[in-house]
């Protein structure tokens, strides 16, 4: 059941990068949301290094050493490293644990020698298959929880995940421009799954005295956004992807309702709404994560970030050093610019530049501009009767905002897609149970493997 009833911030204008209502402290002198922004660097191992624990630990050791060396070379005051599990690190919990331990040893060295502030986020891979197994009672889930334990024991400061509940429905719905399926898959099933899994994650975090971080709708809203792609892509309408994002905001909230403290996951583009509602610090990624994917809101997403990330960069050589060092440097300077603005008392000016760079570039940036994101947050907390109600309200608010601002130009096709989705949203039942019954009937027929019982329905 939803818990948040009001906004953490009194207005959108109050939200700014570097500061969160509820800062988080962990690691080696590392404070997130406490007044300054830090980079979060996400290294990705080269293909082939996943073949054994030894080769993979070695790969992480090299990647992270390069990152810490670059911090010390150019003066970055602190950094978080995300160990975003490749499948093998979660499947073999000891691998992830040993990698966390090794990275912690490295960070302690640099902290002792130079005073470099640092922290580790371990993001466990959710490799459950919702259309093939019981998502709440499977070997995969059991192993994932073991991986959380091993990582926490090893040295992770922050435990995060990208849960996939409801993905069997949204995979079907997104490529069919079916907003009902999106609300059901992300807003209802995704939320229910998060409620179940996050209770367990928070318990593990408490047991080890580490911080439960956050969850992102990577597997669903990001799929819609990446498929929407650039201006010339015609895989998914951009306006439809933006609605999907609004629904994701209602869903990702569940982690914080179950006890997660942030910082949120970098790839949760919906995190600005999360910050507005919960006050937890957020990690974001934008222009400097072009190494991982292209987006149409490269500057705008920085507007309220507390950690600034590259999403993921595979380890390779460039002229200027290895990719992990190169992207640590770029992130480091991005962050230095933000922190300089803070010290100058001009953070709002810089924020305005970031926002207006991309607010009207595309639908996604438009709804995630702090003012619009805040409005979506308000619609969510005002409709907290059910996961369904707030998901639907989020989407309707997003659509309303998009249709209401003439500066957001749309092609005829994009507008039609949006209006058609809005009509469907309006026609949906008020009552959650009615909606669920309706959806179960439809999608049990259309989506192979969908099993309502797996979500307690």
């Amino acid at each position, binding site marked *: 059941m939803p818990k948040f009833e009001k906004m953490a911030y009194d207005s959108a204008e109050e939200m700014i990068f570097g500061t969160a209502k509820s800062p988080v402290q962990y690691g080696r002198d590392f404070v997130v949301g406490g007044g300054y922004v830090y980079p979060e660097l996400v290294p990705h191992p080269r293909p082939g290094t*996943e073949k054994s624990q030894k080769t993979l630990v070695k790969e992480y050791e090299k990647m992270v050493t390069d990152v810490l060396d670059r911090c010390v070379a150019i003066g970055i005051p602190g950094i978080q490293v995300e160990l975003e599990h490749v*499948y093998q690190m979660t499947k073999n919990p000891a691998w992830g644990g040993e990698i966390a331990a090794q990275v912690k040893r490295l960070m302690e060295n640099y902290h002792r020698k130079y005073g470099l502030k640092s922290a580790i986020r371990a993001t466990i891979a959710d*490799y459950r298959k919702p259309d093939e197994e019981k998502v709440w009672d499977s070997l995969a889930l059991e192993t994932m929880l073991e991986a959380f334990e091993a990582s926490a024991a090893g040295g992770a400061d922050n435990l995060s995940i990208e849960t996939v509940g409801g993905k069997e429905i949204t995979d079907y719905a997104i*490529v*069919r421009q079916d907003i009902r399926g999106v609300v059901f898959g992300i807003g209802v099933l995704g939320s229910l799954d998060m409620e179940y899994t996050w209770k367990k994650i928070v318990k593990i975090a408490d047991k080890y005295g580490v911080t439960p971080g956050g969850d992102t709708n990577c597997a669903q809203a990001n799929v819609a956004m990446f498929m929407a792609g650039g*201006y010339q892509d*015609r895989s*998914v309408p951009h306006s439809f992807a933006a609605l999907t994002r609004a629904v994701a905001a209602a869903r990702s909230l569940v982690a914080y309702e179950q006890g997660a403290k942030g910082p949120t996951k970098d790839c949760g583009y919906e995190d600005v709404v999360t910050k507005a509602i919960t006050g937890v610090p957020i990690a974001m990624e934008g222009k400097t994560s072009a190494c991982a994917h292209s987006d149409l809101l490269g500057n705008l997403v920085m507007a309220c970030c507390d950690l600034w990330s590259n999403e993921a960069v595979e380890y390779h050589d460039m002229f200027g050093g290895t990719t992990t060092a190169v992207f640590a440097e770029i992130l480091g300077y991005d962050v230095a610019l933000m922190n300089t603005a803070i010290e100058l008392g001009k953070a709002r000016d810089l924020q305005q530049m970031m926002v*207006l760079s991309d607010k009207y570039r595309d639908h996604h940036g438009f709804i995630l501009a702090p003012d619009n994101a805040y409005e979506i947050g308000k619609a969510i907390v005002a409709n907290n009767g059910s996961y369904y109600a707030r998901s639907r309200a989020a989407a309707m608010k997003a659509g309303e905002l998009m249709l209401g601002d003439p500066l957001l130009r749309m*092609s005829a096709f994009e507008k039609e897609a949006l209006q058609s989705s809005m009509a469907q949203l309006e026609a949906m039942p008020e009552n959650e149970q009615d909606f669920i019954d309706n959806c179960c009937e439809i999608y049990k027929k259309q989506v192979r493997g969908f099993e309502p019982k797996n979500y307690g329905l």
Partner: protein
Amino acid sequence: MEALAISNYDNIFKRYDLVSEGSGQGIMATAKDADLQKIMECVIEGETDDILGLVDEALTKLDPMVIINDALIKGMNEVSRLWDEGTYYLPQVILASDAMLAGIELCEKKMGKSMEKKGIVVTHTAEGDIHDLGQKIVNALLRANGYEVIDLGKDVPVDTVVNAVKQYKPVMVTGTALMTTTMTAFEKISNRLSAAGLEIPFVCGGGAVSEEYVTGYKLGVFGKDASQAPGMAADAVNGGTWQELREKYNG
């Protein structure tokens, strides 16, 4: 309020999506008679619900193969054209495919046999990868274009892929992977297939998979986009070797 601070965004970004808008010609295809026209329109509009009744009705008057060729496939061809010209987005194509396949299924029931397919393609998502949306799109596009798809699903071990190729003798096999640390299975599959003398095009793509990697092993053809799959399958049916496909689509 903020927005009013800027009067002209032209030097900040340019909306290239609006530059080329409206250059398509819209729906142009027409069918031979009113019944076929309505069915064709259902495909073009992606009306999965309505199409069943219309096909049922038409089957009382017309030969199933006429309905398939002159309404269902014709509609799908028009949809492909609309996609190519930029009028349609992928969802319209998928919905059309859903509608067409539903219609064909009815016709096949009437005929008492399946219509002949252009060829068989085996598809899979790499072991360790549970993200199979890319594969599902490939499946839908191949089926929409008349190919039989042997869908091995996601998280598929190397052995399963190799055995399926031996069993079904496809013209082409595809693999998708989201992560580079799972795509390494592709090279193993390639080696096993080569060793077994099964030198068919092995089209690999998805997520982090790169042309550099895929063209580094035998049989590998890099698939940049799911929409290429039907064209590649057509080339393979027409006898195109993996070398020829690689030459055409990569490099």
